[in-house]
């Protein structure tokens, strides 16, 4: 204990450098733990993109492809699903609800998604959270659109504004559905999911804006007015995918198999939670990179500490000599310097951990709102405690390096220090 008190007093004597060293270690520990928090937060937010949906049904393809285009609006469908198949699935006794999705058009680079009103009640994210409207409400008219919060922010739309949907999905489009503008009926609150970047319209509207087109282009002189189209049969012929909710989770695999074996049309039914995990497995390598970088930062901070102790060693030869003169053995000197390294690291680890939690508490609402990333404030897990413990141990070991040098010096110098 005596050694620790001596080490502490000696550090107090050089408090500026000591504080800076503690700060460097604290920052590196904050980074190490912070990266871990962001990593688990990102993983959770990713897994929370869709919840409450038991199956996603689309044309026969890989589960990742189907997940990417139906949930993340990345890439395109391999094929469409006919309306007949959609109705057949809807009729299955185990199916509680089914929501159609139709993709293919865009608005200033944001995807337009055709669906029905059930979408807003059944699509859940973040462990069963429902979408809420920041302004306005769901569709009430054929040409109503509900936009995500990013769309509203980026394009400055308010409820009641008129928007024109472009054909195709490029950010610059040459063919627009100019004759049939949409009215913004609602703006959704921020979700942190791809919904924020989507323009939602009704399936019938998707059908309506293409009704006077042929082979994917408008026919000159043959346009049907927006009013005339309201009187026509707007039942869609095909959709891109459908989200399915079941009465019981026990039926999930049965229904999935039945859809995959559906003889009339090659379909794929995927479990979104499983596909999300597969996808994370692919992009999750970035996680490892982050962890490696933060471990390097910790190593750098420890190296800085060793340098600090080593450089002051020369100035402290007299201190060592005095200690020796009052009866300290060279081993005591060794212990003293090792304790110094340990104490500095311990102080750094404690400051860093406390700092991280204070920072998390303060920054959490902002991060959640701006990036849709919900960071959990929970005590360090077992492996994080282990990492912290390892850093303190590494501090002691690093302290040994200057300690051994001091031990040698104190043996050689004896009482006669030639400064």
């Amino acid at each position: 204990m005596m050694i620790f008190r001596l080490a502490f007093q000696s550090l107090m004597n050089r408090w500026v450098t000591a504080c800076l060293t503690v700060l460097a270690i604290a920052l590196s520990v904050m980074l190490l733990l912070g990266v871990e928090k962001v990593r688990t937060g990102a993983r959770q937010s990713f897994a929370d993109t869709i919840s409450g949906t038991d199956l996603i049904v689309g044309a026969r393809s890989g589960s990742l492809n189907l997940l990417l285009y139906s949930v993340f609006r990345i890439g395109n469908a391999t094929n469409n699903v006919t309306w007949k198949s959609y109705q057949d699935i809807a009729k299955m006794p185990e199916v509680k609800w089914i929501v159609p999705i139709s993709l293919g058009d865009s608005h200033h680079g944001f995807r337009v998604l055709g669906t029905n009103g059930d979408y807003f009640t059944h699509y859940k994210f973040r462990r069963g959270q429902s979408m809420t409207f920041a302004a306005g409400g769901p569709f009430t008219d054929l040409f109503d659109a509900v936009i995500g919060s990013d769309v509203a922010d980026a394009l400055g739309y308010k409820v009641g504004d008129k928007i024109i949907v472009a054909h195709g999905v490029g950010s610059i489009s040459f063919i627009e559905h100019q004759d049939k503008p949409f009215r913004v009926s609602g703006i959704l609150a921020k979700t942190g999911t791809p919904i924020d970047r989507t323009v939602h319209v009704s399936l019938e509207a998707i059908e309506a804006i293409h009704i006077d087109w042929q082979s994917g282009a408008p026919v000159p002189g043959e346009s049907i007015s927006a009013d005339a189209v309201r009187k026509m049969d707007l039942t869609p012929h095909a959709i891109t995918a459908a989200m399915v909710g079941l009465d019981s989770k026990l039926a999930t695999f049965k229904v999935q198999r039945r859809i995959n074996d559906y003889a009339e049309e090659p379909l794929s039914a995927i479990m979104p939670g499983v596909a999300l995990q597969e996808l994370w497995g692919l992009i999750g390598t970035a996680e490892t990179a982050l962890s490696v970088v933060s471990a390097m930062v910790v190593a750098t901070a420890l190296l800085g500490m060793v340098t600090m102790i080593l450089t002051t060693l020369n100035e402290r030869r007299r201190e060592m000599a005095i200690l020796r003169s009052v009866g300290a053995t060279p081993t005591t000197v060794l212990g003293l310097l090792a304790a110094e390294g340990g104490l500095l690291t311990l102080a750094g680890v404690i400051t860093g951990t406390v700092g991280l939690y204070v920072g998390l508490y303060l920054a959490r609402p902002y991060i959640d709102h701006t990036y849709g990333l919900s960071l959990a404030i929970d005590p360090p897990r077992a492996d994080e405690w282990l990492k912290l413990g390892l850093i303190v141990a590494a501090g002691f070991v690093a302290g040994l390096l200057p300690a051994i040098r001091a031990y040698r010096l104190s043996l050689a110098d004896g009482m006669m220090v030639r400064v």
Partner: protein
Amino acid sequence: MSKVLSGLASMAMLIAVPAFADQADHRQLGPHVHGQGTLDIAIEGNKIEMELVSPGMDIVGFEHIASTDEQKAAVEKAKAKLADVLAVFKLPAAANCKAETANVENRKETHKPGEKDDDDDDKPGAPQHSEFHATYTITCEAPERVTGLETVYFSNFAGAQLLNVNVTSPKGQTQAQMTRDKPTLDLTGAM
């Protein structure tokens, strides 16, 4: 007369169309990878439903129709082993689980569950793939104690290397893998 004829014709079509749809040869095959099986687990309330699909290669070491007495015995023995679900997939004793139903089939991959095997490609030695399909229903008195699962599947069946596990429960869906080196499954998030 022509009316009667057209009436007959349309009736004939009404009958013929569904018949034709039935006859349409619908061909598709699921994946079949030796060494890899799939275990689907659905949990709700105090009920757990499991379905295991494994290539015959993993379970008995061959996939043709069992012809010798020895092969037939091997298939029967494997079926009996797989039928005792709680011995193959051990759930925590505290959960007090009981197997309600267990149904094990060994069938060709081209066949649907329960389909009669009357093809003529069953000659001994004919190249083909077969799979073991097992479905189980389990009830547990304390389902919240089902925190994990341990399996002797890999030590029982020498050809098995990997089980892809899909889990769905009211808490969400997850995917995991059980291997020869790690024959356990964590279910803490699912209950």
